[in-house]
């Protein structure tokens, strides 16, 4: 390469380094898009043949029993929806409450204990939570609520809530932290109580971040597999009433995990499992797009108010 003693040489060395580094960073950035596109292409290629092999009315039927060619996926979709909704009902209030406590109310020493503890909960492997679910949660739920069995959507929701909670807490807490101190001081100066400040000023100001926290939490819950497979009982029953929370359900993720090992490449069952994977992908895409759309809109409104 160029002469090291020469000042123009050093300069061109630098620009070479710069060129390589920018290219590398750019490639890293684009690679995420490329990988998602490749995954989606693969899902489409393996999943779409289902629509040709299983008639529409058979696909959106009420019985899932693939070894006898019943490919009704409605019970699986309803199972995923009810377990995820239940998890959101648990993780969102608890998560945002914890975030508010950590960022607004707790004294410094409590905050320094709480934050790592929440992160520790996030690091628990889901299979461990599943074990706890089978051995402790499900038997106690059965006795406590007098259910036929404790392996229910509720058990799945509670554990998924626990899994989604750390995500919600840490993202929401970050969002609350970025609200400028002057906002709170302004509210206090106007005579607002601490609760009024939190509810009317801090939380609305951090709204987009809190919403992102909720969406990320739901995204975490919807894709979780091991725990739900262990505790929800995996019975493919259509779950549409709130009472279904107290009966066994089968989720889309558990179905894919339990059955993918058994199918022969290219069979109808194989394609249908990929079709389910495609639906899951679309679900989380819709959640993410909705989240960013809402965040974008609320930002524009905030800008309008400020101007």
């Amino acid at each position, binding site marked *: 390469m160029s002469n090291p003693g020469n000042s123009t040489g050093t300069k061109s060395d630098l620009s070479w380094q710069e060129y390589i580094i920018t290219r590398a960073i750019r490639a890293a950035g*684009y690679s995420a898009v*490329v990988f998602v596109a490749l995954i989606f292409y693969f899902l489409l290629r393996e999943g779409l043949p289902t629509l040709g092999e299983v008639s529409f009315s058979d696909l959106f039927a009420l019985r899932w029993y693939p070894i006898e060619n019943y490919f009704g996926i409605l019970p699986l979709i309803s199972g995923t929806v009810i377990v995820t909704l239940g998890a959101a009902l648990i993780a969102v209030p608890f998560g945002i409450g914890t975030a508010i406590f950590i960022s607004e109310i707790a004294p410094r020493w409590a905050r320094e204990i709480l934050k790592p503890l929440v992160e520790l909960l996030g690091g628990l492997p889901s299979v461990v939570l599943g074990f706890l679910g089978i051995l402790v949660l499900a038997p106690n739920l059965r006795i406590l609520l007098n259910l036929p069995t404790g392996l229910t959507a509720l058990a799945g929701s509670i554990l998924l809530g626990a899994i989604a909670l750390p995500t919600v807490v840490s993202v929401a807490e970050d969002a609350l932290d970025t609200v400028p101190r002057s906002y709170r001081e302004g509210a206090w100066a106007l005579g607002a109580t601490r609760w009024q400040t939190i509810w009317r000023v801090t939380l609305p100001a951090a709204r987009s971040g809190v919403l992102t926290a909720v969406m990320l939490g739901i995204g975490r819950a919807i894709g979780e597999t091991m725990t739900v497979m262990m505790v929800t009982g995996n019975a493919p029953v259509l779950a549409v009433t709130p009472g279904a929370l107290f009966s*066994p359900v089968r989720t889309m993720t558990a179905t894919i995990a339990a059955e993918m090992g*058994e199918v022969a490449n290219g069979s109808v069952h194989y394609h249908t499992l990929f079709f389910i994977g495609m639906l899951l992908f679309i679900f989380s895409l819709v959640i993410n797009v909705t989240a960013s759309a809402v965040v974008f809109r609320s930002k524009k409104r905030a800008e309008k108010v400020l101007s």
Partner: protein
Amino acid sequence: MKRNLFLLAFFLIFLITGCGSNQEGQSGPASASAYIENKGSDTIVNLALAWAEQYQIEHPEIRISVTGGGSGTGIASLINGTVGLANASRQITADETKQAEAQGIHPVEHIIARDAIAVIVNPGNPVSQLTLQQVSDIYSGKISNWQQIGGEDRPIVRLSRETNSGTHVYFLATVLRLGDSKSKTLFSTDTLLLPSSEGIINELRQNPNAIGYDGLGYVPKDLKVIALAGKQGAPYVLPSIATVNNNTYAVSRDLYMYTAGDASDAMKAYLDWIVSPEGQKIVASQGFVPVAR
């Protein structure tokens, strides 16, 4: 710049598809060296492990790896060429044979042991005997309270293995459909499909509402085994090695290993050893029933 990215994308696609097509030809070298890959039925996995351990002590030059996953998984792996020896607790289906032939593989069947499926309940359940018809009605959803079959007033919680389990398929054919191949009876949709034997045993241990089934070798002593009668009026029989061998217990079956084509020398020696008296002694010690020769 953009063109480079597309090139990269294409390169990745080729890389991925290339990896996929490579896997098909791998079964050959694995079976040629004295390495046996053995995979399939969860019912057989402990038995297969016991065999492999004993055989490797006697023949240190042979290495055998044993994994479970279900009969369907094992046969699918045999078809994909990733294992040389598949364990199955059911016979290969016509569909699977067709898929294997399409891949140029001819599965050969070997009967290696016998097994009985026990119907089990919580030890606190007063019900101790049922006819096959009653068990069928329970699992198809016609009977849903223990009171209807002489038990307490409790809802029945039906437990089953996942559909990739050979035990599941065998139970469906032999008990739910009572061996009638034209029957279209299915499991009630609210049957809990648990991914492992442990899941079923755990739930049975603590839930007095539950009924489940599993291979005789897997039933722990602290659960209650139901005596079954093949027909109304026939004697109720508990599963045991004796009742399976004299064919009085209604729900018993053969267990299989499948090879891709005729077994290689190393594998043939292993299969011969399995059905020898020495191999069959291990069968009995694992709670299964030796093949009568």
